[in-house]
């Protein structure tokens, strides 16, 4: 491979990785925008989503490494699985909000954050115990097709990820900008008290934010499983931490910012692995997090300052 081809290949790799981080970053951003709460449970809602997706796919008869369905039935089965996974993850997010975070809503300080850490830890260890810490094989129902463009290989799976992620993010953006609930959401994000006075049901808005964020995390989980072809109890932590960095980089609370941040972190990870060393990838990513906070705390696209009162 030529140097250029390697670079382009790493861009393609980074794009798939970034699409997943972006989906995950949206959940952080939605919740933070409204509650100013870093939701550590989100890490493992994603992980649980991957397992839920596995169960759903298997119940649709999509098992093992062979392509069983083709054409429209395959697409339908996958879409149905994605929908069920998103619904289940969304409900998990709503339950977490309702039973562990709502009672903490007006408690000052790090209490609510500590609660989300506890929830995250519970999900993590529950899955660890249930799966005996084993990695599980994921169904691979999609035909294995590669496109070769001037030394660069693009896999069909990657293209599908980009399309699904783009559609989901576009849908979310539309929802936040256009729908009545989305507008209410933005109103609460700007000033919860004023929004309440204007008749916005804050509880409902928070619930929707958790549902949407967790559903996207679930989608990211299932896409993760299909793309990497495996899942394990430990996948949430690293991906979640990077996704959070992406949200901060793009400007936390800012929906397009999370998408841009996700893609950037994905690219930084692959380019950094190529030209520095994979073992320093985490160090590079966290350095970026710290530099962002020092020099541009509002993020690349963020309008609001994180130290507002």
């Amino acid at each position, binding site marked *: 491979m030529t140097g250029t081809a*390697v670079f382009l290949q*790493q861009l393609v*790799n980074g794009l798939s990785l970034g699409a997943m981080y972006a989906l995950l970053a949206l959940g952080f951003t939605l919740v933070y925008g409204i509650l100013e709460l870093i939701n550590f449970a989100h890490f493992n809602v994603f992980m649980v989503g991957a397992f839920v997706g596995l169960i759903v796919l298997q119940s649709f008869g999509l098992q093992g*490494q062979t392509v069983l369905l083709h054409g429209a039935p395959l697409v339908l089965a996958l879409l149905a699985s994605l929908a069920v996974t998103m619904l289940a993850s969304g409900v998990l997010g709503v339950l977490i909000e309702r039973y562990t975070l709502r009672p903490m809503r007006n408690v000052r300080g790090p209490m609510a954050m500590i609660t989300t850490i506890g929830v995250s830890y519970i999900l993590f260890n529950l899955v660890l115990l249930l799966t005996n810490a084993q*990695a599980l*094989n994921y169904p691979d129902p999609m035909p294995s097709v590669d496109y070769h463009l001037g030394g660069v290989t693009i896999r069909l799976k990657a293209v599908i990820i980009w399309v699904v992620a783009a559609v989901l993010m576009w849908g979310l953006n539309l929802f936040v900008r256009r729908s009545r609930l989305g507008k209410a959401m933005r109103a609460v994000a700007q000033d919860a008290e004023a929004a309440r006075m204007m008749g916005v049901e804050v509880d409902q808005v928070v619930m929707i934010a958790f549902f949407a964020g967790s559903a996207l995390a679930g989608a990211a989980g299932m896409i993760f499983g299909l793309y990497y072809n*495996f899942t394990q109890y430990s996948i949430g932590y*690293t991906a979640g931490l990077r996704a959070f960095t992406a949200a901060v980089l793009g400007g936390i609370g800012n929906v397009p910012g999370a998408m841009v941040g996700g893609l950037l972190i994905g690219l930084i990870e692959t380019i950094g692995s190529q030209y520095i060393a994979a*073992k320093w990838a985490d160090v590079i990513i966290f350095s970026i997090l710290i530099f962002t906070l020092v020099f541009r705390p509002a993020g690349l696209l963020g309008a609001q300052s994180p130290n507002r009162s």
Partner: protein
Amino acid sequence: MVLSRRNALRGAAGSVLLASASPIARAADKVYHLGITLPLTGADAEAAHLILHGAQLAIKLANQSGELGDIRLEPMILNNATATAGQYDPAQAATNARKLAGTRTVLANVGPEMSGSGKAMAPILSMASLATITPSSTAPDITSPTYAGEFDPGGKPIYFRTVTTDAYQGPNMANFYAEVLKAKSVYLLDDSGAYGVGLANAFEAQARKKGMKVLGRDRLDPKAADYSAVLTKIAATKPASLYYGGTMQAGVKLVKQSYQIIPHVIKGGGDGILSPEMMTAAGFPAAEGWYGTNASPHVVDDPKLANWVALYTKTYGVAPDDYAITAYDAALVAIAGIKAVQKAGKPLTAATVRDAIASVHVNGLQGPISFDKYGDMTSHIVAVFQFHQDKSAPLGDLNKQMRYVGVAPQH
């Protein structure tokens, strides 16, 4: 923090999980203990239990056969994982070593699993002249004469192994790459764990000696999911072969993704990838063609082993892995030491058993076992296997899904 005496006996570090009486025990028997120290909870729990059962089985069979005369041997099972560490915890291992050293009926110990725990335990056991036989800790430092002052202050070796150290497994495989597979170049990966790093280091040194071109060395984060960037980088160097030092946590992802990005490169690893997860999680066709090594002679076709596997599976409801076999052998070594002391008519103490173990010759499941003056196995045979799907056999059956290639050249 203040425990009553009764509680202290029961719990000490609190890590005695169970010490169940053997059903055929005779009341008059004098009871001695064989310690088993493993990370039985947390992320390593599953693997640790397979090892545990291997040692338990040896003890059970020894008691049943009556070969121990008027004594009965019971396992004293100590967990060296803590919730605080989330995995194996060297501090707990040190506590357990003190517990073992402070219990007069303990004659020897099987364990630990990780070299990190071994480093914490060795000086304490050394001062107490209590032998420990590890079925899986392969870091050469602990038994190296260079560090004898730190890890063996008592002066007599107490850290015995029924596995070969990384000092042989890696280099022998490098010989195999160079001489048998005729690989001209290699790219090295490890999983940032002590085992994987040590293995890859040892391979790298020997590969250079053999004139192979080392194209690069990188380290995988076992918690990360995407290795496509590293693999793309590797693909660009066009290596003839890839060697991976590490376990299946990173291995599952590496095997899957390397199948897509560098399908035509020779790929291999150490005993860390000879795991059922290679088939159940990584799966075929990705695993097809990977080489792996075992730090012991290949004995799987031996009917003795087949019977043993059946017995193990029946007794504990799970199939044994490689380390279950070395753990069984480790317990056999301890038992042989005890029998030698009995035969010589000496009193049974940890120190006499240690002396006996140092010169013991045992026929283990993996073949004849004896130790050099540092406590390492005199046999340095490394067996090479290659994964090859057998659709007629169960997917998780390691012995069916790979084939024996031969003994790696030793030089």
